[in-house]
């Protein structure tokens, strides 16, 4: 009964567990010192471009980011030393760990299989080119 109700609710508002995890992440960010807070918000914004939102992969990514910045704040590591001279490079490398649900992963798969197809077409028409 309770699970049936929850299921119905989740089809309307989306998975509750993911909403809870996102709220927990936001609360952790709120507790960070201002400079770390600004940095993590910027990284989160950049990650939207990769488009996995609040899927499991996206949430794990945010939770790992919170771990990194909480650790940095606890050790007193300045933001620059966490993100490096080239924050884009750091962000891209970091985001590559969470390919599930990213539109770029779908495009990478599409490119790979299109090339496989192109190679097969070529071997099929060998000697008859032009």
């Amino acid at each position, binding site marked *: 009964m309770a699970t049936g109700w929850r299921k119905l609710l989740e089809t309307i508002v989306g998975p509750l567990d993911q909403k809870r995890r996102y709220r927990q992440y936001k609360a952790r960010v709120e507790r960070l010192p201002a400079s770390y807070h600004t940095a993590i918000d910027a990284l989160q914004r950049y990650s939207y471009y990769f488009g996995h939102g609040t899927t499991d992969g996206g949430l794990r990514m945010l939770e*790992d980011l919170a771990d990194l910045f909480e*650790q940095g704040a*606890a050790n007193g590591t300045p933001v620059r030393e966490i993100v490096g001279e080239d924050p884009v490079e750091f962000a891209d490398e970091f985001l590559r760990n969470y390919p599930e649900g990213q539109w770029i992963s779908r495009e990478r798969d599409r490119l790979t299989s299109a090339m496989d197809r192109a190679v097969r077409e070529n071997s099929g028409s060998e000697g008859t080119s032009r």
Partner: protein
Amino acid sequence: MAKLVTEMLKGTLEGIVLALLAGRPAYGYEITAWLREQGFSDIAEGTVYALLIRIEQRHLVDVEKIPSEKGPPRKVYSLNAQGRDYLEEFWRTWNFLRERLEQLREGGR
């Protein structure tokens, strides 16, 4: 110079970190601090962290959460059997690369 080091480090940082962990288990901050001591002063802590997540996902290390006096618990990484195999492969590849580069420098083929 700094840029060149960064570029070259990209392909080898994984091996460097695995080699370090072969010596003893360590947590992220320690690893970054050690790399800085060794002269890799431009390395970002976040880059090391992203690498640690990657080698964890690939099951090359075991991870243990140890409570810390200040801040959140620390993740301590240690090399496992699969990681040791991978490290051996890294050194073989490194030797291959080093030999070829030496030959190039000496003008041979």
